[in-house]
């Protein structure tokens, strides 16, 4: 998979580009306040011991007390400034991330379907999601938030570095070098841990899987009936041992790093104490100065560590942002040169010429050189075994997929030249999977924003679909939310009602071409036959294409296409196909013979 990457700077500019639209400009003064207070706070806090010793050794108690009081007060103010600034910064970027998800949503809803559905698209989307949907520590939020933190630490480092350097340049070099070594070691260890985690996580995944399977009520019947408990518990024990091995291995690494850190800090403190006490002995510095420098020396590595920490956080999150940008640019609809026009809402003829389609990563084509003309008002049934290419053919016809070879024409116009949204308008499709969104019923039926909804027509459609009675019983009528996901007052529809909702949506759409992809698979026989009749009456004066593997439905249709391995192998009416005694007839026999009074097949 080719993936474009950007520099960190480019990312920051990109994500800050949307920032002001959602959050305004307040962030800048807040960040400056935070940086100032934060540096002052660390410095004043560190120097407090030194200052106290200095003023407490004064003879004048009153003056000493006033100064110390003033100092402490200032310290409290900057501390408060730092923590409030930090909180505000966290809050702002958090809110920004939450709002930013709108940009992501827009792309998800408009990107090319084929690109989205592909394995690549799904992977990219999954990866991009992390940028905005996996908490405060992933993606753009920590990166943006770390900018002021990084600035503050750089200023602090420069300040402390100058102070140490003014005393002894070698000490500064030692501090700098050990900090670098520590960062190197920490980085190395983190990488080592990641490597171990990769192995460990496999075990965890299996472990969590077991845990969930055991507690999943769905499995309980099988676990009971087959006495599977020992099997599960033994596996858990085995996994526990394996996990602990990895945990131990990882912890040893951290222990090693800790020891190095302690060693360096010990040497540093020993040297610093020795050096500054000697300086004091020679009268070069006073006790308060000694305390100040000891503090500076001890604090120096803190700034360094935090800088590396910030940079590491940013670098770690860079790939996440890369993924996001990669997804946002993936599957963008190319609208140039789409000038084809069709008469909207009138009757159409569809013609396929030598159309082939292969799913990415597959070798066998799913649709192999299919040519077909469907005249207006014709009723087509597509039949065939699972995997014969029925659904793929449907998706090609209604424009969700583009064929790799061959062309599809609507009224003689090449479909690829027609803007997608115009082309889609000509179709009313009901798929096998029935679902509604947790929005209002009206939104679900009309699929339009409230201003555009035609209420009267909606009610007519609901009546035709046989759902109006149910709607009238709903607490808020047409505005009732379906499903409980977004509103606790939402209403749940039964499977049958959901089918009716799909029908109402298709009716409201009122498009000249109707496609039904096994809309009744989940129903029991009686409900199924009722549904068939409804669909039949609704498709009377339209072109319709019907998929089913219950062959019974084919009897409504003018023409039956029997698909096998992506090709149309048989074609004709039910009667003529039965006469042919081919694959269709065989399949029909297999199903039918259960239902016939006398044994047909032995």
């Amino acid at each position, binding site marked *: 998979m080719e993936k474009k990457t950007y520099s960190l700077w480019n990312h920051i500019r990109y994500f800050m580009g949307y920032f002001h639209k959602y959050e305004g400009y307040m962030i800048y003064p807040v960040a400056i306040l935070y940086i100032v207070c934060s540096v002052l706070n660390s410095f004043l806090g560190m120097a407090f011991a030194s200052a106290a010793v200095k003023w407490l050794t004064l003879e004048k108690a009153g003056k000493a007390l006033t100064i110390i009081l003033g100092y402490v007060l200032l310290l409290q103010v900057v501390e408060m400034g730092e923590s409030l600034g930090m909180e505000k910064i966290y809050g702002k970027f958090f809110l920004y991330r939450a709002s930013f998800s709108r940009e992501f949503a827009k792309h998800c809803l408009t990107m090319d379907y084929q690109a989205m559905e592909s394995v690549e698209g799904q992977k990219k989307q999954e990866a991009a999601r992390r940028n905005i949907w996996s908490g405060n520590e992933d993606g753009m939020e920590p990166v943006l938030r770390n900018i002021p933190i990084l600035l503050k630490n750089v200023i602090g480092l420069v300040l402390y570095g100058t102070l140490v350097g003014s005393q002894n340049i070698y000490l500064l070099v030692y501090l700098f070098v050990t900090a670098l070594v520590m960062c190197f070691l920490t980085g190395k260890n983190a990488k080592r841990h990641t490597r171990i985690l990769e192995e460990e996580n496999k075990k965890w995944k299996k472990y969590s899987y077991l845990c969930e399977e055991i*507690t999943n009520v769905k499995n309980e*019947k099988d676990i*009971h009936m087959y006495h599977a408990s020992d099997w599960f518990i033994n596996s858990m024990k085995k996994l526990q041992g394996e996990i602990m091995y990895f945990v131990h291995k990882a912890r040893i690494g*951290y*222990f090693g790093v*800790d020891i190095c850190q302690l060693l360096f800090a*010990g040497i540093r*403190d020993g040297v610093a104490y020795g050096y500054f006490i000697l300086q*004091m002995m020679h009268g070069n510095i006073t006790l308060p100065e000694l305390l100040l420098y000891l503090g500076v020396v001890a604090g120096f590595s803190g700034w360094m560590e935090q800088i590396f920490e910030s940079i590491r956080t940013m670098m770690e999150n860079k790939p996440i942002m890369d993924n996001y940008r990669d997804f946002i640019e993936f599957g963008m609809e190319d609208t140039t040169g789409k000038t084809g026009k069709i008469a909207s809402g009138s009757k159409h003829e569809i013609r396929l010429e030598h159309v082939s389609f292969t799913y990415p990563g597959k070798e066998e084509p799913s649709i192999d050189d299919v040519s077909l003309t469907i005249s207006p008002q014709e009723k087509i049934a597509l039949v065939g075994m699972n995997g014969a290419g029925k659904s793929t053919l449907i998706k090609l016809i209604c424009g969700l997929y583009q064929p790799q070879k061959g062309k599809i024409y609507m009224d003689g116009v090449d479909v690829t030249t027609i803007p997608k949204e115009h082309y889609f308008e000509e179709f009313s499709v009901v798929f096998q999977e029935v679902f509604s969104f947790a929005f209002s019923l009206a939104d679900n039926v009309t699929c339009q924003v409230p201003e555009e909804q035609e209420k009267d027509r909606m009610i007519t459609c609901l009546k035709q679909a046989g759902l109006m009675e149910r709607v009238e019983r709903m607490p808020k009528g047409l505005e009732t939310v379906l499903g409980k996901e977004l509103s606790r007052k939402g209403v749940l529809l039964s499977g049958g009602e959901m089918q009716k909702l799909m029908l109402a949506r298709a009716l409201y759409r009122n498009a000249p071409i109707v496609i039904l992809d096994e809309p009744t698979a989940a129903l029991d026989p009686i409900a199924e036959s009722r549904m068939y009749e409804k669909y039949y009456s609704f498709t009377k004066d339209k072109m319709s294409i019907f998929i089913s593997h219950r062959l019974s439905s084919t009897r409504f249709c003018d023409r039956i296409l029997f698909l096998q391995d992506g090709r149309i192998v048989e074609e004709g009416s039910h009667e003529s196909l039965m006469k042919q005694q081919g694959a269709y007839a065989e399949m029909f026999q297999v199903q039918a013979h259960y239902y016939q009074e006398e044994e047909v097949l032995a």
Partner: protein
Amino acid sequence: MRKIKEKWKTSFSYHEYGIACLKIAWRLDRSVLPVGMLLSIAGVLQIYLGLFLSSEIIDTLLREQYQKGMVLAGILVGTNFLLGIGRARLAMAQKERNVKLSLSFKQMLREKVLKLDYESMEDAKKWENLQIMNCVPDSREICQR
């Protein structure tokens, strides 16, 4: 007065369950609690030793006894180093023990689930209990360093 006492008692009653959990931890792994206590003691010891020694250092230096100051500084750095290593080792043990405890606890719950009958499992209230189990995060998710 009694009322206050009552209130006090009820507002801390959750420790009862907390202690029950500690008992389970003790049953599952004898070393978790002692390791934790040692770690606590070492931590506190380090803080207050540091405070004592540094105030001594300031006083000796004020009295211009530089030699003694050096010695005290050496002791401070040395104890910090040793206690630091001790704590690092204990922390390592604690982290490992915690993961193990977490795993053992999960397993213990699953053993109970497997022993339970189907009817109890399908019961809504208990079903919720089951879901709870899957939602309890493990120590790995929480103290990932």
